[in-house]
């Protein structure tokens, strides 16, 4: 199979489109998954007090 202009542009217009849509849906679902809210909030606050040294 030759790597022609036709083939690459078809792949870009079909597969490329759908994988980017699937990716953005997946990321949005992850970012707004309700039960992860506490974990994100904890992470956001964790950097405010981190100078007391490592745990390991």
């Amino acid at each position, binding site marked *: 199979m030759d790597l022609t202009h036709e083939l690459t542009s078809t792949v870009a217009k079909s597969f490329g489109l759908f994988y980017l849509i699937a990716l953005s849906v997946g990321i949005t679902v992850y970012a*707004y998954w309700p039960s992860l809210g506490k974990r*994100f909030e*904890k992470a956001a606050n964790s950097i405010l007090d*981190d100078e007391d*040294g*490592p745990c390991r």
Partner: protein
Amino acid sequence: MMERLTGAERQIALMICVVMAIVGLVMAAAGHGDPMGSHGAIVLIAAGITTLFVLRAIGEPEPAEDRTVNYYDDPTKAGLVIALFWAVVGMGMGVWVAAQLAWPDLRFDAAWSSFGRIRPVHTSGVIFGFGGNALIATSYHVMQRTSRARLAGHVSPWFVLLGFNLFCIVAASGYLMGVTQSKEYAEPEWYADIWLVIVWVTYFVLYIRTLARRNEPHIYVANWYYLAFILVMAMLHIVNNLAVPASFTAAKSYSAFSGVQDAMTQWWYGHNAVAFFLTAGFLGMLYYFLPKRAERPIYSYRLSILSFWGIVFFYIWVGSHHLHYTALPQWVQTLGMTFSVMLLVPSWASAGNALMTLNGAWHKVRDDATLRFMMVAAVFYGLSTFEGSFMAVRAVNSLSHYTDWTVGHVHAGAMGWVALITFGSIYSVVPLLWKRETMYSWKLVEWHFWLALAGTVIYVFAMWNSGIIQGLMWRTYTDSGTLAYSFTDTLVAMHPYYVARACGGALFLTGAILAAYNVYMTIRHAPEKRPERDYPTSSKAAEPAVPAAE
């Protein structure tokens, strides 16, 4: 510097130095009579100096500190000082280049000082020397704090930092000797490129190993940006620098790509160097140091996740907007243009997230120049990403491309965003790392802020004017259908703006020199901060450097 390494670690460091010295010797001998030979000598000298540092420590007693209770900050400290050195060198070169454009006699008729040679010294000096060292140093700081874990290893952080600087020195000295593979921001030749791959893979492994030791369930978003920076830069660097050396004993090589493929690969690299070196890495800095300095968590952590993936997956497609109206297929140009416009959404989400974080802390922005550096950086990030999306539109690009407008756009990003967020981060982290109460002089920080802001605004406005005049003159036709202006006419019209640009750059450089002085004086003379503890500490390292009795 090396005192905190154990005996075994010092031996490993010494072995690496010896291997490097042998490599340098072989390069010097094999490449005799070619710039590669001079580079061999540079590698040999660098290995020799590092060996002296290691040998001075090798007979010292083993470190007494308890490694489990402290972060390992020595490489961070060294990296920050080196970054400031490169800032002064790289920006100084920039002012000289700008002055040469206004007053060509300032070349002084030497081969090494021609525009084509010192311009890459400026670009590599500020991007890789200043930006790269600041990224490596702050990433060491941030990965340890956000993971609540000490660096995974004590030799590899030094190897990455010093190895990267060896690459920078080989690159800069090569440009002056005329070594280049003519790819913008990827000028160094094949042996320097191979060396950078070794350093960069070590950096990636170090980062992953430190994260693997983390004591937090979630990896804080700043680390995602730093990791994207490291991983994607490795990918870009390897692909774009695929080349066949003409000879293994000389610097010259030929790219594996040719024609429009070469151009596309180069700008896929070139624009993603902007994306993942000059944006993703510095967004990592922003997401850590801005909330930290404002003492408020990031406005929306969820938005930061969305914008991260948006930036990563849109940016990788935009490179072809550098090749509008070329032999590149039209649909690839349109693809790059479309993704550039879409990129505005995650970019503004990041800039907005940073500014919203400051709601409730605006009084701190007013009083604290360090936080103001970061605030203005976020504003310039928003401005230059808007401008970038706009300029990628084909119709706008037909006016802006090949003109000084592009140069102005790049500097709005590099000075207004990248340098300001870096200086803000440096000012917030230096007193902490050297255990000082504050910076040596807050007045100098204020001076630096206003010099940097004034320099950036003068620079960007000068280049907007110059670029648009230049673009319009190029496309003005007479009634008989011939070009109205000769090329020399455009140069005469641009001259006043070139003078203004050199002045703006000089103000910015002055600010960077003040920063270097202020950091030096903080390290040497600022009063030490005594840790306030009402209990005995178990570690010697946590005690003040000088016991109270002495």
